[in-house]
């Protein structure tokens, strides 16, 4: 069983469309994240949720809306897609408290290409 699984792995779509990426973790972790890796390979945090509650919300356009139906799932919905949204989106999770809460387990990534 994959610890952190994301779907779809690849997503090609037109500008202006709306798309979603789903993430599920079976590690029993309390916290889940979305990170974005741009074309220059920089990884940057977008959001984090702890037990379905939004904790971190970086400066991300409000076209991006995360949703956590339960602590094992964190989805990312993107409205009105733009060319600059093309990137690899990584879901991650972490558990525990203190130092352990910083140990992230990443999914394999979802490559979004906006044409």
């Amino acid at each position, binding site marked *: 069983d994959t610890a*952190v699984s994301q779907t779809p792995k690849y997503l090609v779509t037109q500008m202006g469309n709306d798309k979603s990426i789903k993430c599920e973790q079976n590690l029993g972790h309390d*916290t889940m*994240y979305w990170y974005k890796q741009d074309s*220059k*390979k*920089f*990884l*940057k*945090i977008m959001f*984090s949720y702890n037990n379905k509650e939004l*904790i*971190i919300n970086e400066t991300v356009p409000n076209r991006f809306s995360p949703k956590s139906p339960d602590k094992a799932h964190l989805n990312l919905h993107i409205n009105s897609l733009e060319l600059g949204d093309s990137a690899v989106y*990584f879901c*991650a999770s*972490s558990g525990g*408290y*203190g*130092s352990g*809460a*910083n*140990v*992230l*387990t*990443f*999914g*394999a*990534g979802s490559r979004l290409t906006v044409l």
Partner: protein
Amino acid sequence: AQSVTQPDIHITVSEGASLELRCNYSYGATPYLFWYVQSPGQGLQLLLKYFSGDTLVQGIKGFEAEFKRSQSSFNLRKPSVHWSDAAEYFCAVGPFAGGTSYGKLTFGQGTILTVHP
């Protein structure tokens, strides 16, 4: 604001040679430090981490890293590289303070490792 610099964008070594990947960070206090590896088309896998204590930490796949506070560095090393080590390596720092900052890692730009047979 914290930052992580990996000065080498691309390193090529021969199989069996030793390896050192450099990482320098800028942070207001002692951070948590990590090295992750990303193989093509894969997610990031944690190689090792430093939280406190012994400044030389051992990780998976025979990797180790040394935290040097005076140099704000956390370099990754391996005594003998295998062809399967070819991948991209990312250094990251995490907040010591915790709280709502947990998991907010700052990553370097990555170093691509090529291994020649």
